[in-house]
């Protein structure tokens, strides 16, 4: 029960309270570039959600199994060359950034090839956005958030397991989709409006984004409120 509650809070926080786009400013480039039509925004959003879940899965596995000190896979391999206590102390966390970006780039490549081969209709919907996603900050940000909850946590019991990591990845993507779809809806209406000339294009989009961010700030404190309501303790 506690575990499910934790998952619920992580999901809610990733999707709404600390929305990736409107609170952490990651994934701003597609938020401004690909938010002209609702259809395109939905395509981009679903592609990001999909890749984010895959990337978080990969980075969680790599970090827990290989990179952290005492990780099962790396200490098993090193056990052939080194005494056991030295093998268990191998710390490769300095490689995290390089490994993450490499796993994101390759997973995007594989997902693109797989989808193009086996789901041509799906590829038509969001295939064109896939190459752009490699350099999407939101994906790397999700991986880094997962990392900061595995590497350097004081109590090893509190390190995130796969379920929590996947919840963050999937619902972070959902939050991105919500933000970009709302933005696209507003921009479709905005095309009909008489916007002052200097504000046309990016400037008005940013200001609308500011108002959206203000609206999303209304969710602040919802998580602690739910925690109090469910557990009864502050």
């Amino acid at each position, binding site marked *: 029960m506690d575990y499910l509650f934790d998952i619920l809070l992580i999901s809610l926080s990733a999707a709404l309270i600390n929305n990736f786009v409107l609170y952490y400013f990651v*994934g701003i*480039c597609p938020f401004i570039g690909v938010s002209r039509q609702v259809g395109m925004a939905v395509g981009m959003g679903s592609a990001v959600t999909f890749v984010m879940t895959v990337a978080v899965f990969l980075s969680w596995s790599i970090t827990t199994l290989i990179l952290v000190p005492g990780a099962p896979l790396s200490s098993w391999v090193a056990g052939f060359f080194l005494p056991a206590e030295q093998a268990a102390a191998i710390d490769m966390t300095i490689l995290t*950034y*390089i490994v993450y970006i490499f796993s994101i780039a390759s997973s995007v490549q594989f997902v693109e090839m797989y989808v193009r081969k086996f789901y041509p209709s799906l590829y038509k919907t969001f295939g064109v956005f896939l190459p752009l996603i490699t*350099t999407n900050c939101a994906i790397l940000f999700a991986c880094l958030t997962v990392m900061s909850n595995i590497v350097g946590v004081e109590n090893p019991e509190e390190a995130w397991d796969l379920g929590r990591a996947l919840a963050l990845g999937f619902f972070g993507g959902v939050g991105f989709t919500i933000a970009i779809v709302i933005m696209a809806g507003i921009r479709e209406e905005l095309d009909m409006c008489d916007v002052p000339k200097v504000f046309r294009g*990016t400037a008005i989009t*940013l200001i609308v984004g500011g108002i959206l961010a203000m609206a999303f700030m209304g969710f602040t404190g919802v998580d602690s409120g739910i925690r109090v309501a469910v557990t009864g303790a502050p």
Partner: protein
Amino acid sequence: MMANLPTPMERFVQGILPENPVYRQFLGLCPTLAVTNGLKQAMTMALAVGVVLLCANTIVSLIRNLLKPHLRIVVFTLTIATFVTVVDRVLAAYMYQMSKTLGPYIPLIIVNCIIICRCEVCASRQSVGTAAADAIGQSIGFGLALASIATVREILGTGTLAGFQVMPDSWPAWVVMVLPPGAFMTFGLLVALVNWIDSIRRKSERRG
């Protein structure tokens, strides 16, 4: 073909204002919005991006003849990731508090579009000198853009500039300026301001 490409001096000047990475190309918006609630953070970020951009541009320019077209983006990102790791460790060692404040935005330099764009547009085609000049010009442009946003946000949001009090004590701090909505609005208004100045400049040029 080489004759059409800009010279080092042109590259350097272009980066600062005419092709400013933030105001003209709208690249690297993630740090632009996220770390500009104070001038100090913004300048540290600009310096970090500048160092990574200079190193990555130089390396990419040196290996430009070895690059395979379909693998180049991967090579760019891996080069950048290496230098970002170095910068991240240096910051954590010598400016621990700052590295805590900037948090995940330092590793996010890896996917900063400015650096990948400069590697693609300039460094993978031109010599080391041009690439370095381009990197320095673009970093100065990026630093200026960050400084302009951070100055407005910090003065209005807290009444201070780089930690020093500049507004009278009676100044009511506009908390919203330090929060996410303030970032979007300040940047949106500044973009409009730049557009406006540009349109006036063009009008007077046409007349003169």
